[in-house]
């Protein structure tokens, strides 16, 4: 094992994986590192890869630190911290010849498992921890010392971070961890890695005043700020953080966040709250989302405002609970029995999550129908640095709601008045003069059950008209890239950051592209169909097995010949180079001269 002297560049983009067994604390290492890099003025993106079990089993956390804007992990991993052999096995494929590996050789030395030229630092972290601290879990802190040195962070800043993090856990724990960290520094010295001699130099700028936040937390925040005051959830990965975050916050605002006995109670309790005029949300994932179908259709039929967050994970059924997917899109758009109006919004990063949660909450009130936020595990649980949200920009739209004074001036109040042809003004219980009947049976304007064919048609049309009306006001897509390019991308959620980075790679390869990032997928907006029409070929990038999104465009009239499905459904996110390569393979036959085709190899 040798390290050569090395003139460190400024840290501008680095990817780090920490991996071991569940419970080994890989997530903790990455969380600490994320804080440190943010302190150092960098942006950060982190990702987790765990199993659906509490201890044991391979678990990894990945971090990217960078200046600029990235919403995904990069194509090649610079540093792998591996607490066991399995961590090496599972992650070697992300390494290249420039990578560095820190390996815990308590269980045996590595030989030959790594790509040649990889620099290896190995040490028996576990044994060291057991010997000196009597507890295995301190191995992280020891390794962390080494990681800091490699990345060119100052010992001092690591110490501070530890203080910040472990203080609340009590003095002893803090001291033990600090001791472990010092052990790590000593070990680094022994391995020839003195302070300031790391791989990078970290430019000292002022700390990055950005939020370090997940999509789930951003959704919770958006809901709160949009006046959301009632939330129900039932624990399910990867949505649980929304429940837990709102359980912390909502009571401080006089709101309620309730863990219900199941998802059926969840959706119906939220509906009950919505009936009183309280802005209500539920969050769940596939299995719970399936269970909510009846309640969702009911909200559509009875015209009850409700926001449903689906943090998609790998399905079907219990599937792979901790792995990302985008395979509930069909269920969001076509779920529930019978025809009813709905709106499906698709955030692409935490900022979107915040702003679209605000929008969703308002839209549910304006259109009195279910509004979905289509999340995915990566978007839900990965953290990213983002500029603080502009709370002052948040406007609350109460929709057509009548109070007692307004009612007094009305001769007759009909909950389901056909007067507007779509949305009808409503009152909430407690309002004098506003009595109403609300029902999921077909009903007349007063809410009285009716099976009159004439009434039925009017009521159905009234409900469905909301969609046409809403179309003009729904969140529109963001556009990136060259508007003239023949080649288009469409992708939502976790593919957002990957597509943007692949576009850069493609540009470097001489291939110009443009990207339409829809933020509403139901109804499908004209802009999206126009984008498809305008392009020669559109790569629809999605995480499911059949191309749910691409077919949805066809369902609404898009020409199937133009759509190229780029699908991934193995429970892992795309990495940018993977996408770039997939596109290059297809494009080769279309492009006369591709400048840098040789570079492709380096992107494998």
């Amino acid at each position, binding site marked *: 094992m040798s390290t050569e002297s090395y003139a460190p560049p400024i840290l501008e983009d680095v990817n780090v994986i920490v991996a071991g067994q569940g419970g080994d604390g890989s997530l903790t290492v990455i969380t600490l590192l994320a804080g440190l890099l943010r302190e150092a003025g960098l942006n950060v993106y982190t990702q987790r890869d765990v199993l659906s079990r509490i201890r044991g089993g391979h678990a990894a956390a990945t971090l990217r630190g960078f200046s600029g804007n990235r919403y995904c992990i990069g194509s090649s991993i610079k540093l792998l911290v591996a607490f066991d052999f399995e961590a090496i096995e599972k992650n070697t494929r992300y390494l290249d010849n420039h990578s560095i590996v820190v390996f815990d050789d308590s269980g045996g030395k590595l030989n030959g498992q790594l790509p040649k030229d990889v620099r290896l630092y190995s040490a028996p972290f576990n044994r060291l921890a057991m010997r000196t601290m009597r507890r295995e879990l301190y191995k992280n802190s020891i390794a962390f010392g080494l990681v800091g040195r490699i990345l060119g962070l100052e010992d001092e800043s690591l110490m501070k971070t530890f203080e910040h993090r472990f203080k609340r856990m009590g003095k002893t724990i803090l001291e033990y961890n600090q001791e472990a960290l010092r052990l790590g520094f000593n070990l680094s010295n022994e391995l020839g890695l003195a302070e300031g001699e790391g791989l990078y130099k970290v430019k000292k700028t002022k700390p990055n005043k950005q*939020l370090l936040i997940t999509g789930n937390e951003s959704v919770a925040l958006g809901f709160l700020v949009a006046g959301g*005051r009632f939330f129900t959830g039932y624990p399910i990965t990867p949505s649980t953080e929304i429940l837990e975050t709102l359980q912390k916050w909502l009571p401080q605002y*006089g709101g309620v966040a309730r863990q219900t006995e199941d998802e059926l109670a969840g959706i119906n309790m939220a509906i009950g709250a919505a009936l009183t005029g309280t802005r209500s949300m539920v969050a769940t994932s596939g299995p719970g989302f399936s269970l909510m179908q009846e309640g969702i259709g*009911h909200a559509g039929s009875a015209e009850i405002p409700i926001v449903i967050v689906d943090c998609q994970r790998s399905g079907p059924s219990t599937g792979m609970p901790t792995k990302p997917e985008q395979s509930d899109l069909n269920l969001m758009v076509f779920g529930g029995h019978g025809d009813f109006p709905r709106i499906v919004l698709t955030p692409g990063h935490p900022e979107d999550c915040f702003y679209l949660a605000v929008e969703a909450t308002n839209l549910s009130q304006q259109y009195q129908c279910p509004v979905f936020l289509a999340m995915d595990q990566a978007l839900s649980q990965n953290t990213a640095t983002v500029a603080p949200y502009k*709370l002052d920009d948040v406007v609350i739209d109460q929709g057509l709601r009548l109070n007692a004074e307004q009612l007094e001036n009305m001769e007759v109040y009909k909950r389901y008045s056909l007067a507007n042809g779509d949305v009808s003004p409503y009152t*909430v*219980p*407690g309002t004098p003069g506003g009595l109403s009947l609300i029902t999921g049976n077909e009903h007349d304007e007063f809410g009285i059950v009716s099976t009159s064919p004439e009434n039925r048609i009017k009521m159905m049309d009234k409900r469905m008209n909301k969609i046409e009306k809403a179309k003009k006001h729904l969140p529109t897509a963001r556009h990136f890239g060259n508007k003239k390019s023949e080649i288009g991308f469409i992708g939502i959620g976790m593919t957002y950051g990957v597509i943007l980075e692949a576009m850069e790679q493609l540009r470097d390869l001489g291939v110009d592209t443009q990207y339409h990032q829809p933020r509403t997928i139901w109804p499908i907006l004209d802009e999206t169909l126009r984008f498809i029409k305008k392009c020669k070929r559109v790569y629809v990038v999605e995480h499911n097995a059949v191309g749910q999104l691409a077919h949805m465009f066809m369902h609404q009239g898009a020409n199937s010949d133009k759509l190229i499905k780029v699908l991934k459904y193995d429970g892992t996110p795309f990495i940018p180079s993977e996408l770039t390569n997939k596109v290059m393979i297809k494009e080769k036959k279309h492009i006369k001269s591709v400048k840098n085709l040789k570079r492709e190899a380096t992107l494998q």
Partner: protein
Amino acid sequence: MTKTFTPGRPIWCAGCGDFAVQGILEKALDSSGILRHKFMLLTGIGCAGTIQNNVHCYGYHALHGRVLPTAVGAKLSNPELTIIAAGGDGDGYAIGAGHLIHSFKSNPSILYIVMNNSNYGLTKGQPSPTSPTGYRSNVEGDLDAILLGLSISSTTFLARGFSGHPEQLEKLMMAALEHTEAGKGLAFLEVLSPCVTYYDTHREWRFRVLDVNDDESYDPGDRAKAFQKVTEIIGEGKIPIGLIYKGEFPSLESLILSSDHTPAALQDIESPAIKEDYLKTMNAFLG
């Protein structure tokens, strides 16, 4: 006054027990002095689950089996409302059984009326959880919801009336409404309400009911004794009615809503004053 919907005429068959329930409910409401617009009647699906159409108040028709969670959602977001949930025995004890247990457990201050006719009326008489062994295809023992309620430590009000004994039913209804209005938790009132069309139990039930409160020594405050008494009465082939249990446990809304805040439904969410707090909440993510 603004005109709103005109309460419907009941769709029940002539002789259905549900008429009595509606009459007595209206009476209780009237004498309670609760303003009709402060009062919300939520129901499940079934013959019983049409009662809201006939009453002058805020009415809501929930999904089959889901009236309790819906009612709880309404109560928690606006505890100033009087919330009454109602439905049939199929609705409450079959598809809704899980929610019943959990509502017993969480004890929100709502009044829950089950119109028990021991069958599925609206779908034409199939057996329900309270149908006796031998009714149509039923081979199972029948469920006694009061026993079920007794088995959960946080229940506070368990009563059973009979549509054929309107005076007693009225007393129970008033007591249940009072319990709820006083914020003491869930008032559970099962009404034996015969279905004359599919399973006419009128005469049988009249003969079988036994009012526990007739015995003045009966103590509705002792859970285990109540259990003992109910099992005993059932063992004798009778059906216990009356106020069977009344206990104390803090109501759900009293436990999770703080008096420092306006209830969720009544808040001014557009008030600029909150923005400061939002900022604080967000800034925790600045590290």
